[in-house]
């Protein structure tokens, strides 16, 4: 296996939260401001231990809320620090206002979000309602399948964020990944440290009436600039288009960083934006996010033994949404089943489904699409239900009247 080539890696027994904390420890992070919330608490708990034990040269700021956690991280990042924070569910909801401020001021923050159901009723378990709700906030979103990938994504996220000058959310499923102990291959400290390097501050040109001025893009009393001033109908629209275009320009950066990371770790997660499984000759596929897809692949194997031509695709990057890549990838299948671990109240389907269906509308072959909403509040999705979904979509073409949005694993 390729791993032999990277023999200096240490195999540690870490859960997803600890894997993220370990990645933060190695990534020359200057400031972490955080407020604990289940189930991400372990991330910031470990980081605070590293700081307390003097294992890292890092400022840990205890704040009074998630709103402040993100605000403080934003401020630190604007002042030139490499900053990190973590949250989950309602904590992310409380950060709402600042999510947009961070992305709109082009601050390269990294935040781990441990995916968890939103209240009410109170539920601490996994679904994707929290980060799906933040999908329009201008953050790059990487979804991890296990603790190893959470570790790898966190390290890569700093590099992606700082090259794109956009914030990155690294997500991992609550409990399913965050609290599951597994083998995690950890790179040596200096390898990660060299990979991410010191944060470089880009310089920007500012047109003034006295001519163009070049200044570092940060809060620096020597070169005063104002972030987030009043900006009305005369310029706000231009600024938003510029931000959107910056987001749309990130896929090559994301791919490049994965390739570079592959060179030091053997794990490049190619082809990066989505990972297909047994799709070459498949008639139908199921596409989804995160840890659930490991079970879907197991079901694909079982159904293949029965002679059914099924496949799976795990999407890793939800923002920016790789619509063009998905259109190419999915146009070969007769039907695409889309797994959403989230409800978009009042919409025709879940968020992933809506975007995939929209992408496929301009596909020449227009595969049929069926949405399966599953796993809310940590409800498990047993293999037999996934098999049921596969069997349904193998036949959906024949029945145009079939509902296109279904709940998987709910009691009527």
């Amino acid at each position, binding site marked *: 296996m390729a791993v032999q080539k990277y023999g200096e890696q240490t195999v540690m027994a870490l859960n997803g939260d600890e894997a993220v904390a370990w990645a933060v420890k190695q990534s020359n992070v200057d400031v972490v401001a955080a407020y604990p919330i289940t189930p991400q608490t372990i991330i910031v708990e470990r980081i605070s231990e590293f700081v307390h034990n003097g294992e890292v040269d890092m400022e840990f700021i205890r704040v009074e809320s998630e709103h402040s956690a993100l605000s403080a991280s934003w401020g630190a990042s604007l002042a030139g620090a490499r900053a990190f924070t973590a949250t989950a569910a309602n904590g992310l909801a409380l950060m709402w206002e600042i999510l947009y401020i961070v992305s*709109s001021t082009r601050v390269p923050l990294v935040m781990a979000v441990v995916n968890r159901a939103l209240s009410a009723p109170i539920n601490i378990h996994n679904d994707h309602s929290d980060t799906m709700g933040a999908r329009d906030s201008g953050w790059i979103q990487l979804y991890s399948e296990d603790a190893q990938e959470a570790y790898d994504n966190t390290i890569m996220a700093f590099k992606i964020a700082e090259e794109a000058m956009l914030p990155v959310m690294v997500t991992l499923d609550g409990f399913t990944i965050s609290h599951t102990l597994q083998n995690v291959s950890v790179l040596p400290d200096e390898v990660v440290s060299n990979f991410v390097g010191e944060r470089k501050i880009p310089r920007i040109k500012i047109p*003034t009436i006295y001519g163009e001025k070049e200044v570092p893009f940060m809060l620096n009393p020597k070169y005063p600039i104002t972030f987030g001033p009043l900006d009305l109908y005369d310029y706000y629209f231009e600024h938003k288009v510029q931000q959107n275009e910056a987001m749309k320009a990130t896929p090559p950066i994301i791919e490049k960083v994965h390739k570079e990371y592959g060179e030091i770790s053997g794990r490049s997660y190619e082809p990066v934006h989505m990972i297909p499984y047994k799709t070459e000759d498949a008639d139908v596929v199921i596409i989804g996010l995160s840890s659930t897809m490991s079970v879907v692949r197991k079901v694909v194997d079982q159904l293949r033994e029965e002679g059914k031509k099924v496949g799976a695709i795990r999407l890793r990057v939800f923002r920016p949404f790789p619509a063009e890549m998905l259109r190419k990838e999915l146009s070969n299948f007769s039907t695409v089943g889309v797994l959403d671990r989230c409800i978009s109240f009042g919409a025709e389907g879940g968020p992933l489904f809506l975007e995939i269906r929209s992408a496929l509308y301009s596909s020449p072959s227009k595969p049929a699409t069926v949405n399966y909403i599953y796993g809310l509040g940590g409800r498990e999705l047993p293999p037999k239900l996934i098999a049921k979904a596969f069997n349904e979509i193998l036949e959906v073409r024949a029945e145009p009247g079939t509902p296109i949005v279904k709940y998987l694993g709910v009691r009527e």
Partner: protein
Amino acid sequence: MSTPMLGWKELPMGAVAFISSKEYPTGEWAVFQPKIDESKCIKCGLCWMYCPDSAYRWDGENVPVPSLEHCKGCGICATECPTKAIEMVRV
């Protein structure tokens, strides 16, 4: 107002401000502006401190000087002046 409007490709990143407030001649909004009677001024600097537009210039020793290019004429300096050395006069 006469500055050409920039397109999204030309604007600096992150919506940072690119025109300083110094470049807006807000003094033309004023109906009244301050006139200082130097004989009454005790050089306490309160006008300089209270001015919400930082329109006063003061070296800490001499009589403060309001920049009439930027003074919008709110009259706070005249109200705060302990010796009533500032009179607001019609522009």
